[in-house]
């Protein structure tokens, strides 16, 4: 045994010397994301993981509070002067992290940095969000006018994430340095260090106009593996992880050092049906498919109760949602009747596709329920990414429909879900392949071309009644965002999936 004692002793010594999984210092808040965005520049990427970091370093003209109501941020007030001109009053005396004072020039510069008027090729991937803004006019030191090419009802929604960057500083350091080592904003935390694929370290900004955030240090770690994130939060290595799935939530709820916080979000699940070909070219079959699904059973059994049944794809918190429109009930008997009426008394065979890997059990349950009423479904699961994209580009052919979800890019407006899902415009998303509802395009266009919110509401109400009847999709439920949080931190999940950590407080 003599031979073994030495290596064992060495191992014991090594373990004794190694600093163990250590708890965080009191004034540090550590968040885990699956990755970092390629840049800290808030205008030059379009990634959720980047936005979550950016919002804590930069301010936009408007902000949304935890109840998702508009709040003044860099703009103290705003109003529409006419159908295409908006006036914003800027907050006075706001300081950037480098000490510069915010001016109207910075706002104009920030917007034109993305819209790049007169340039053929735009370098910002966010261009589409604000392409409606044709002109930014500086009226006086604290007033700017935004002029849109046509009435643009989504303007305020788009400006909630549209960070304002310092013109002088950016022109001095250049785009590349700004995105990697010299990011400067007006937000609660300022940039300290970015170790790629490891952590982004931020520090509270003393001159922030809201006051100082509760945590002095904010660290955003990149941890790609979910199991590793869970081990980290259990051992106090991180304080907050996102996207906790229904099967893991109970464990983290019961854990001595963590709790779980959920909020209903915009992400809506649906099965978009191919109306160009049989059997879903028939309205009765589409209605039958809707009646075949026991949505409550799926929510309760497969999603840990974290889901809200919806009548169409328009989410309850989105502007334009009509609560009068009722969801399809679960009625397999009626479904069979409708199917028979449509000319399929002995059922019909279909294929559905999905690349929504996290919700595979839901997909399988859906197809089973359809099969039970006679819509015998062959379920095909894809890896998200390349092959799936190719499939969608091939006009979604060789399929009768696709199970998926849509999160509106966090825009709380019916237009942000109706247009991509159901409008047939060639540049559109999935609707251009599948949806063929008479008059729907025109109504969607109508809804997005006026600022009169009452008129828009009426239009969207009309659309929801129409699509409830025509059923271009199987309507399912909206999802929840679930965070696991360390018990030493007080924070709650938000309906827009933001991590607005200014609201995070140490727990006593």
């Amino acid at each position: 045994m003599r031979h073994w004692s030495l290596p064992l002793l060495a191992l014991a010594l090594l373990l004794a010397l190694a600093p163990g999984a250590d708890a965080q210092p009191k004034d540090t808040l550590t968040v885990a994301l699956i990755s970092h965005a390629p840049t800290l520049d808030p205008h030059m990427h379009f990634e959720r993981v980047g936005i979550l970091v950016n919002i804590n370093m930069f301010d936009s003209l408007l902000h949304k509070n935890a109840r998702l109501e508009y709040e003044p941020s860099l703009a103290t007030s705003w109003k529409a002067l006419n159908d295409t001109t908006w006036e914003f009053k800027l907050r006075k005396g706001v300081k950037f992290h480098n000490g510069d004072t915010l001016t109207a020039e910075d706002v104009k510069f920030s917007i034109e940095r993305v819209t790049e008027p007169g340039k053929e090729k735009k370098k910002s991937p966010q261009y589409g969000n604000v392409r409606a803004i044709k002109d930014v006019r500086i009226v006086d030191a604290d007033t700017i006018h935004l002029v849109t090419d046509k009435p643009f009802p989504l303007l305020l929604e788009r400006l909630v994430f549209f960070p304002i960057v310092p013109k002088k500083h950016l022109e001095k350091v250049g785009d590349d340095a700004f995105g990697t080592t010299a990011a400067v904003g007006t937000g609660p935390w300022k940039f300290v260090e970015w170790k790629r694929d490891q952590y982004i370290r931020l520090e509270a900004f003393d001159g922030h106009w809201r006051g100082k955030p509760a945590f002095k240090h904010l660290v955003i770690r990149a941890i790609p593996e979910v199991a590793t994130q869970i081990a980290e939060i259990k051992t106090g290595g991180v304080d907050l992880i996102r996207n906790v799935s229904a099967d893991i939530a109970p464990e983290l709820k019961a854990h001595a050092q963590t709790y779980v916080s959920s909020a209903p979000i915009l992400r809506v699940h649906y099965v978009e049906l191919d109306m160009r070909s049989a059997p879903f070219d028939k309205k009765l079959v589409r209605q039958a498919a809707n009646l075949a699904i026991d949505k409550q059973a799926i929510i309760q059994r497969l999603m840990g109760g974290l889901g809200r049944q919806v009548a169409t794809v328009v989410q309850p918190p989105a502007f334009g949602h009509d609560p009068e429109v009722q969801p399809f009930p679960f009625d397999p008997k009626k479904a069979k009747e409708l199917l028979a009426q449509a000319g399929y008394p002995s059922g019909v065979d279909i294929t559905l596709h999905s690349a929504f890997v996290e919700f595979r059990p839901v997909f399988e349950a859906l197809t089973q329920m359809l099969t039970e009423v006679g819509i015998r479904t062959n379920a095909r699961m894809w890896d998200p990414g390349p092959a799936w994209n190719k499939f969608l580009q091939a006009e979604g052919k060789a399929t009768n429909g696709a199970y998926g979800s849509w999160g509106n890019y966090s825009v709380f407006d019916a237009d942000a879900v109706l247009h991509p899902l159901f409008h047939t415009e060639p540049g559109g998303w999935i609707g251009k392949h599948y949806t063929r509802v008479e008059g729907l395009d025109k109504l969607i266009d109508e809804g997005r071309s006026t600022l009169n919110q009452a008129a828009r509401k009426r239009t969207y109400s009309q659309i929801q009644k129409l699509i409830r009847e025509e059923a271009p999709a199987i309507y399912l439920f909206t999802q929840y965002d679930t965070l696991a949080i360390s018990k030493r931190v007080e924070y709650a999940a938000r309906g827009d999936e933001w991590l607005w950590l200014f609201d995070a407080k140490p727990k006593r």
Partner: protein
Amino acid sequence: MSAFLVRRLVRLAVVITGVSLVTFAILHASGDPVSLIMPEAPEADRAVLRRTLGLHDPLPVQFARFVGNAVTGNFGKSFFHHGQSASALVLERMPTTLMLTVFSMGVALAIALPVGIYSAVRRGRAVDQLATGTVFLGQSMPVFWTGIMLILLFSVQWRLLPVSGWESWAAVILPTATLSTFTAPLLLRIVRSSMLDVIGLDYVRTARAKGVSEWLVICRHALKNAALPLVTVTGLQFGLLLGGAVITETVFAVPGVGRLIVGAIRQLDFPVVQAGVFMLAMIVVSVNFLVDVLYLYLNPQIRVR
């Protein structure tokens, strides 16, 4: 001898070209990065981007351009990391991956050599049986599983080591242990069996008969000849280790090349995947070339041939 080296060098070039071609073909068969970069853009905007990225040319043209540039070390700019060159992204992370791989190889050898020799010498005894059993276990565990189990035991259960990251020396221990667990068993088996082959030979018996101490017999006489297969396998294992590092880096959030490549594949960032695979392949092939050279030194028979 020089003919031997030249043959090996030619083979090296063929392997590298083959690896590049396969990577290139698989990537381009897997889809259109432009639709991932701008999922909601109109087709006209996409066409512009496709042109800028050079993706509108026929595949053979693209491949020729890729090879031409790769020879000069230029793999183009990353689609995803704006404006950064793909080779810079890979090189920035290469030391981390090499460190992890070399450490793991070191630890694996440090375990395999003594234990392998010992179990060969004490064949059939308790230590030998224990070692053989462990080998069996170690080889049956997939890397990602070993990694997660080690996290659960050492970090969650016993709170001895950090779960993930690369910020302290303590954080290096678990990923290294994971990879060594994967390599050590095979090396151990090779050491044991080649020692067994050699230990019964006449020259070893002669050495013993001359009165050379047992320790010297094993280390000086037996091991020198038994080392040949070990060198070969170590070279081969190096490639496997780099492959294992890809998974290990993801599990332990290690900022290395493997994790970069996994992310790049997901984003269809062709230049980064190509640069990463190319450079990893270069390393594997070079290590094997070194092994060949080492052979010349260790085994004079080849030199004669």
